[in-house]
C-alpha cells in the first residue's frame, strides 16, 4: 500500500450528542452521547480500523466525519486536493466549519460505503442512474462521457457495462455491494468511510468484497476509515486499529501492536474473541460481564469500569486520560502501565497477529 507520512484526516475532540425529546412540548430531556470526544488521524493511503460493539458510536463517528450527521463539537481537519483549486496543491479544511458550498466540494473527496446493500440503493433507479448520479450532481461528466465513466468504474468493481440498464433488485447482495462501492468511487475520492461493508454479506462473499476493497485501494490510492464490529475483519485490512467503547476511543495502535500488546482491558477482551485457525490453540476467551451501559447516562470515571476485571477505585472516579505510550500507541486506561494483558497467540506459536497472509 502506497502509504505516506502525510496526515489526510485529523479528528480532534469530536463530539456528537443526540437530544432526547419528550412530552407534548418536545423539550430536550437528555442526550444520547453517541460520540463523546474522540481523537484520531489517518495518513494518506492507509486503512484505519474503527472497532466496537454495536451502539458504541463508531457508525455515528464515521457519519459525523462526513457530516451526514452534524457534529456537536470538535475539529475535523481534512487535506483536500480539490479545494485547493490549482493542480497538485492541497488545502486543509475544517469539515465542521465548511459552508454549504465547501461541503458539496468536499463530498467529492470523502465518500462512504454502507453496511446494507439492500436499503442503500434506490429501488426505482437503474444501476447506471445510481452510479452516474454523483457525476450528475457535481456536473462532472455529461452524456456519453458520463456513460463511459460509469462503465469504467463498474468494470473496476467487477461488474459489466451492460448492468447499467438493470435495477438493483436483479442483483445479489454481493453484487449490490459492488454497485454501492462503484457509486462511492465514481467521484474519485481521497477518503472512503467503509461502514461495516461486509457484515451484511454471506461469509463466502465477505472475503471477495474485502479483497476488492484492498485492490481498489492500491489502484486508486484510497484512504479508508474501516468501521467494523469485530476485530477479525479489521485485522486483515487495517494498518492501524482504533477501539471504541461507549463513545470514546479506548485504544489506538498499529494492528501488530494492538494484537501483540493490547494495553486496554476492553481490547484484551476483543482480541481474545478473534477466532484463530489453529486446532491446537485453546481459546482463553474473556467473556465480558454485564450489559453495555446506556449512552444516555454513561458510568462516571472510566466508562468501562463496571465491566472491567482489573478495575480499581480510581477507575470509577476519574476519566482516564487518552495518552500516547510511545510509538503512537494511544490508550485511555489508568492501569495501562502496570497491567500485563494477554495478546493473541502468546502461548502457542509465539507469533503475533497482524496482517495475515
Amino acid at each position, binding site marked *: 500500500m502506497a502509504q505516506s507520512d502525510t496526515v489526510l484526516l485529523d479528528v480532534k475532540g469530536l463530539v456528537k450528542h443526540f437530544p432526547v425529546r419528550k412530552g407534548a412540548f418536545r423539550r430536550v430531556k437528555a442526550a444520547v452521547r453517541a460520540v463523546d470526544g474522540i481523537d484520531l488521524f489517518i495518513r494518506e493511503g492507509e486503512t484505519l480500523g474503527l472497532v466496537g460493539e454495536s451502539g458504541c458510536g463508531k457508525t455515528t463517528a464515521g457519519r459525523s466525519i462526513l457530516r451526514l450527521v452534524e457534529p456537536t463539537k470538535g475539529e475535523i481537519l481534512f487535506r483536500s486536493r480539490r479545494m485547493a483549486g490549482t493542480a497538485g496543491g492541497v488545502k486543509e479544511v475544517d469539515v465542521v466549519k465548511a459552508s454549504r458550498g465547501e461541503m458539496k466540494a468536499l463530498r467529492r473527496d470523502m*465518500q462512504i460505503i454502507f453496511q446494507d446493500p439492500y*436499503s442503500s440503493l434506490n429501488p426505482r433507479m437503474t444501476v447506471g442512474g445510481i452510479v452516474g448520479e454523483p457525476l450528475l*450532481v457535481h456536473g462532472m461528466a455529461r452524456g456519453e462521457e458520463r456513460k463511459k465513466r460509469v462503465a469504467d468504474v463498474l468494470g473496476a468493481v467487477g461488474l459489466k457495462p451492460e448492468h447499467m440498464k438493470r435495477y438493483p433488485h436483479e442483483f445479489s447482495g454481493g453484487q449490490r455491494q459492488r454497485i454501492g462501492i462503484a457509486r462511492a468511487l465514481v467521484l474519485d475520492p481521497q477518503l472512503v468511510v467503509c461502514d461495516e461493508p461486509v457484515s451484511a454479506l454471506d461469509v463466502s462473499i465477505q472475503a471477495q468484497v474485502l479483497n476488492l476493497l484492498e485492490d481498489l485501494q492500491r489502484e486508486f490510492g484510497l484512504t479508508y476509515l474501516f468501521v467494523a464490529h469485530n476485530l477479525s475483519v479489521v485485522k486483515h485490512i487495517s494498518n492501524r486499529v482504533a477501539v471504541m467503547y461507549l463513545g470514546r476511543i479506548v485504544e489506538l495502535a498499529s494492528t501488530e501492536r494492538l494484537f501483540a500488546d493490547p494495553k486496554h482491558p476492553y481490547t484484551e477482551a476483543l482480541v481474545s474473541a478473534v477466532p484463530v485457525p489453529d486446532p491446537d490453540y485453546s481459546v482463553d476467551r474473556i467473556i465480558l460481564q454485564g450489559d453495555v451501559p446506556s449512552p444516555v447516562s454513561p458510568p462516571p470515571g472510566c466508562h468501562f469500569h463496571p465491566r472491567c476485571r482489573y478495575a480499581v477505585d480510581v477507575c470509577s472516579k476519574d476519566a482516564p486520560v487518552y495518552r500516547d505510550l510511545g510509538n503512537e500507541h494511544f490508550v485511555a486506561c489508568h492501569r495501562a502501565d502496570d497491567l500485563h494483558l494477554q495478546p493473541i497467540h502468546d502461548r502457542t506459536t509465539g507469533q503475533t497477529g497482524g496482517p495475515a497472509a
Partner: protein
Amino acid sequence: MPETRETTPIRRSLLARTAGGVTRGLRGQTVLKVGLVIVIAFIVMTVVAQMWPSMNGFDPTKYRGAPRLEGPSATHWMGTDQLQRDVFTRVIAGGFASLVVAFSAVALSMIAGSILGWISGYTGGWLDRSLSLFMDAIYSFPSMILAIVLVAMFGSGLSPMIWAVGFVYIPTYFRVTRAESLQVRETTYIEAVKAIGASRTRIVLRHVAPNTVNAIMAVSSFNLADAILTVAALSFLGFGLPPPAPDWGFDIQNGQKYLQSGSWWLITFPGLMIIALSLGFGLIGEGISDLVNPKRRRKLG
C-alpha cells in the same frame, strides 16, 4: 441538447417502468379495464357533446320543441322536461362540469398536497408538526360541508367549485405522501445521496417523490370517484353551472320540483350517469390498488 440528455437515463427508466407496469398489469386486470373503458367512454361522450351539441337534432339548451314533461318514448328516450327539452341530450352533455371540476380539483389538490407532504415528511421538525396539525384539522372535518361552505363563499360556477373541492382534498394527498416520505427519509439510499452532495430539492424530487407515486396513483382514482359525487352534490345545491347549461346535479334539483307529479325520469337518468362515472373511477382505483400492492393481489387472486 445536453440538458435533456443528462436526465435521460433516470427519466426513461421511470417511464419505461411505469409503462411496463401498466401493460403487464392490464393482462388479466378486468376490474381496471372495465373502469378505464367506462371513464374513457364518458370523456369521449362529453367531448363529442360539447363539440357537436345537436347531433340527434335536440340541442340540450336551444331545442324547446318536445312535449312538456313526458316520460321516455321512442323519440325522447329519457323523456322530456318542463321546458320541453330532450332529457337524453341533456344527460349526454351533462357530465362536462363534473369531469372538468373533478379532474382540475384533483390535479390541484394532488400537486399542492403532494408537494407539502414531501416537504413536511422529509424535513420534519416544527414545520412538519404545524402542517400536520393544520391538515388533520381540515381532514377530520366533513369534506362535503367544507366544500359547500367554501364554494358558497367563492361564488358559483366552474372555478369556485375547482378551488373549493381542490382545497378540501389537499389533506388526503398530504397524509399519503407525508407518510411515504417519512419512510423513504429513513432509508440508507437517501443518506447515500446526501453523501454524494445532492441538494435538498434534488433529493425530494428525484428520490422521495418517485417513491410515493404508486400511493398517489391509487389514492387519486378513489379521490376522483369521490370528487364526482361532491361536484354533483354542489351542483344539486345550486352552486354549479348557471341554469340553461346541461348538468346532472342541477338537472336533478330541477327534477325534484316535479317529483310529486311522478316525473321520475328527470331524476333517474342523470343520477345513473353520476353513478356510472363515479363507479368507473372507483374500479380504476381498485385495479391500481391491486397492482401496486402485491400482498393484496395475492389475497384476491
